[in-house]
Each structure stands twice: as structure tokens, then as C-alpha cells.
């Protein structure tokens, strides 16, 4: 192991990464998990892995971090411990009187296959470029572009089809998720 003061990937480096990107990873979790508690757990796992794999972290870390978060979520889903909830079930964290269009949009998004949802979220919510999204997804830029195109087309079709906009019950508040 290198002496700490010669290793740029030291605790100070990690502190910067953590402070800069923790909010991004939390938001990533909030968009895909039912509550802030679960998002916090996800963020913690992501940064634990980041430290372990600090040698692999690229100079522009964010897409890489999202990729880690994505895999952590996938593993949790497999383990059936923190199954990401469909978008329609994600609690409204916005403001009162959510426009009907927003509810419609979430409902439509929830009807799409997960890969479609993910590319749309990465572009629309994480505001990544197509190339960055490709890094997260582990595919080529071209493939990501094709996925985005198809996902947009399916979303447009879903929006044209009336969807129930809610499940009729209040969303679970944070601290819930007991049955995940």
C-alpha cells in the first residue's frame, strides 16, 4: 500500500467525492425507492463500495457512481430486500396539488419495461448525457441512444393510453417499506 500522503485516492479525496456526490446518489435512490430511509441505505452502500474500489473511480465519477448504485439496487432486488417500487408508487415528494399531468406521466412511466424507465430516468431526472447514461448502463453510446429513442416512443404511446393515476391509497411515508 502506498503511503497515504502520496496516494491521491486518500481520505481527503474520498471526502470530496462524498460531499460532492452524496446528494446525487440520494436523489437517485429517492427516484427509485419508496422512502428516504431506503435511499440513505443505498447511498451508504454506494460510498462504501466507492471507497473499496477507489482505484477504479474515473475522473468524472458521477456516471460510475450511478452505475454502482444501479447494481446495488439490482442485487437488492434479487435478494428481495429492497425492491424498487414502480414509479407510480414513489411517494410524492413535491408539493401540494401535483398537476394531473405529473400523475399521468408517472403512471405512464410505470407501465414501461424497467430498461425503458431507467434510460428515461437517467436522461430526464439524473440529467445525464446519452454517453453518460451508456456508462451507467454498461452499454455503448449508440445502444443507449437507441434505447432512449424506443423508450420515448413507448412513453408517448403510454401517455396516449389512459392510466389509473394512483393506486387509491396514500403513499407510504418514509420509515415504511416494511414489506419490501
Amino acid at each position, binding site marked *: 500500500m502506498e503511503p497515504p500522503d502520496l496516494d491521491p485516492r486518500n481520505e481527503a479525496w474520498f*471526502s470530496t467525492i*462524498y460531499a460532492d456526490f*452524496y446528494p446525487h446518489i440520494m*436523489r437517485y435512490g429517492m427516484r427509485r425507492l419508496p422512502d428516504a430511509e431506503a435511499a440513505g441505505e443505498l447511498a451508504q452502500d454506494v460510498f462504501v463500495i466507492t471507497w473499496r474500489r477507489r482505484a477504479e473511480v474515473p475522473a468524472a465519477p458521477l456516471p460510475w457512481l450511478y452505475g454502482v448504485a444501479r447494481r446495488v439496487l439490482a*442485487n437488492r432486488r434479487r435478494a428481495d430486500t429492497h425492491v424498487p417500487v414502480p414509479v407510480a408508487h414513489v411517494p410524492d415528494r413535491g408539493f401540494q396539488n401535483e398537476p394531473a399531468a405529473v400523475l399521468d406521466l408517472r403512471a405512464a412511466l410505470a407501465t414501461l419495461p424497467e430498461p425503458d424507465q431507467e434510460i428515461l430516468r437517467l436522461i430526464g431526472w439524473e440529467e445525464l448525457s446519452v454517453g453518460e447514461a451508456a456508462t451507467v448502463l454498461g452499454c455503448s453510446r449508440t445502444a443507449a441512444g437507441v434505447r432512449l429513442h424506443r423508450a420515448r416512443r413507448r412513453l408517448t404511446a403510454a401517455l396516449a393510453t389512459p392510466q389509473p393515476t394512483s393506486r387509491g391509497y396514500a403513499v407510504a411515508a418514509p420509515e415504511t417499506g416494511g414489506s419490501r
Partner: protein
Amino acid sequence: MKSSVERTRDLLGPADPARGFDPVPPHPVHALITRADSAPEVIVPVRPGSPAETGPPRTRPRLARRTVLLGAAAGVAGVAAGSVALGRVFRADDLPGPVLGAWGDDDVVRPLAYEFGDGAAPAADRLRDLADRITPSASDGGEGRYTAVRGRRWERTILRDVPLAQGPRPDVTGTAMPPSTPRPPGTSDPAGTASPTDTGLPPGTAYPTAAWPTNTVNTPVPPRTGVPTHTSLPTNTAVPPRTGLPVPTRTPIGPLVLDWGQGAGMVSETWSWYGPGWLAETDIRVRLEFVSADARQSWYAAHPDPIEPGRSDRGYKATYPELPAALARTTDEVVASLREANPRETVDIAVLVRQRGTDPAGRAGFLRTLADVQPHWVWRGEVVDRVGRTGVAISRPSPELGPDEPYWHAGDVVLIFDPASGELIGVERMRQADGALDEYRVFTETRRLAESGRTW
């Protein structure tokens, strides 16, 4: 003309669930580094049959009538009692002190004691009885913009699916009595080292293994007979042994028996404030909690510099000025949602009622609605939960477990209610196939408060 990316953002942006959410990193970096350097890799998935799977074969145990004692026992005071004047305005300082025992005193999963057996009655009529008898709780009343919720949650998550790459294997059977020897009534197992059966299998699974009943709604429920049937807890608990009751053979299952990793789970204890709109603030304390004293010993032997027990980290904080429509619903509306919910969502709704719940009528409504629309719950009678409180439990096997489904989908659920107030006080989730505990949660406080901000 806008690009496809820009149009996607224009379309989706307003629906972003994280819009306006700007969390502050809650954990000191050194805590993460310590965890990273000491705990096994988090995200290694393990499938059945892989070399990392160390549990016994997953044949389905025969269901038998028995009493279950999960985890080691320790004395903990029950929930703080006390009547609450309606309409009183509480402040954060009014919140009661610790009711879960001193943090760090005891890092072994505490027991859940209950009895179950073949032919358990449908829960519906009992739930209606409970609803009819509901009394106000210490949580009721109070006014304010915030709801404070306190509880613990244990999950066998971080270490569950981790290969045993380092250190000695955990000795989950420990130094317990010979496996086939029934523990004499009244003797304690304070170290939680009780052994599985000599086959290495958990001796029973808590719930029916057949497809869950769908035709029980009209099944007559036998009248409630006599005394509660749970056995006494070990003598070092705060709950006095119940003398004069038949003492069934007590057989430990669940966390004493199976853990893929090293017998450790992560428990978090939280005080959360639900302010106008969304989570206002949460204080979280996290530590390891082991399924047995032996598991703890083995784990620390393998991890000489582990996560420091008792470390307290400030939680995240987010505030929103307005109430989202979803959270503006009344308790009655939440309860009504039960009629349309997927059975898997029942627990979420139950917890939500608890979190909002300072309202006996709302609780009664939940219990009655549950009885009406989900007849598959079965009555498990009186239990003693993981913080020593007496409750009544209902359970249901995983509703979507088909014969070919993998065992990790088989999360059976137990809901525990306060027998007087009808409040949800606990949730348990286990794997049906082996009875191993996946998660437990306890709720100890819910209060309406005029402010948020209490810290440990």
C-alpha cells in the same frame, strides 16, 4: 429544434420525485471507510446451491404445534406508559426517554415468543374483536405540525449473502444443549445459543406451508378459550413468567439457526419527524446486532476492527413547505386504500396508519377493514415482542409464493398489535422455507409534536 435529450428532460422533469431534495451527507467519512474496510462486500449475491451458501438444505419442515422463541432474551422495559391529555401541545422535550434499552448494552437479537400450530384460526373475527375493544394509547392526542415516530428495524441485509471468506466459521449451534434435548421449562437461554435440531434443519416453520387459504372468510372461528398460550420467557426478561400455564416444548428457530453470513444483521434505531409534507428529519443510529452471542463472538473474531458499536450519526434532513396531496389524506382514506391494495402492500399501509396514528377510530377502522378484505391472515394469539411488550399477532404466508418460486421470495409476515390500543407495535418478516428472520421492526412511539429537532 430541441434534442431528444432536452425533450425528455422537459417532459419528465416536473415528475421528478426527488425534485427539490437536497440532502446533506450524514455519515462521517471515516465511518464509511471503517465499514468499507471491515465489513464484507455488500453486493455479492448468492444463489441457492452456490458455494457461499452455508445454511442447511432447504427442505420444508413439517408444521407442528410448538412455541417459538427467537433470539436471546434480555430484559427491557416495555413502552413508556402514561395517559395523554387530548389537545395538549407537545414539544420535543416532552418525548419520553429511551424505552429500548441503552444502546450498545446488548447486541444480540431479542426474542419473539409466540405459539403457533396447525389449524390456526382466521384472524378476521379476532381483529374485529380487537377493534371493538380499542382504548386510547399514550400516542393519542397531541397537536402539532410534526409527527415523531420512534422505532427499530433490524435487517439481515448487509451480511446475509456474503461468502465466509475470512475468519472462522460462525458456530451457530454454539454450546447449546444436545439438539434433541428439550429445554426444561423455565430455563433461560440468555446467550441465544440454543441449537437447531440434530438434522441441522430448523425444527418448524412458523406458518402454513400449503398455499395460503383463500376460502377462510366464512370459516367459523372457535371462541377464544381461556388463557393466552405463549410460553414464559426466559427468566431474565422483564416479562414475568406466567405460572400455571401449560408450557409447551420450546424450540428455537429463526435467527438462532440460519444465517448465510456470520450471524450479523444491521439494526437501525430512528427518531423520525414527519413534518408538513415529508420527512422533516431523522436521527439514525446504526449498529450490528447478532442472531446469537456465539455469532457475535465469531463475527468479532473475524473482524477485529469492526464498525464501532454505538456510533451515532446524524441523519439526513429535508424540509418542505407544503403538504403533498398523498400525505394530506386522512387516516380513513389510508385505511380505505387497503381495499385496493396488493396484499404485499398491506404492511406499508399498516405502518402508515401507525405513523399517522394518533387516532383510535382510525386504528379500529384499519383492523376492521383488514378483517373484511384480507381473510387470509391467521390469528397467532398473544406474543411477547422483541422489546418485551405483550401483543397480539397475526400472520400470513407470502401471498405470491408459488410452488416453484425461490425461497427468498417467501417472506412471511407477522403483524403485532398492542392488545389494548390496537396500535401496530411490530412487524416481522421471515422466509417461509426455513423460518429464518429477515427483518424485524418495532415501533415504540408516535407523537404529534409542535416542533421537530430532538437528537440523541
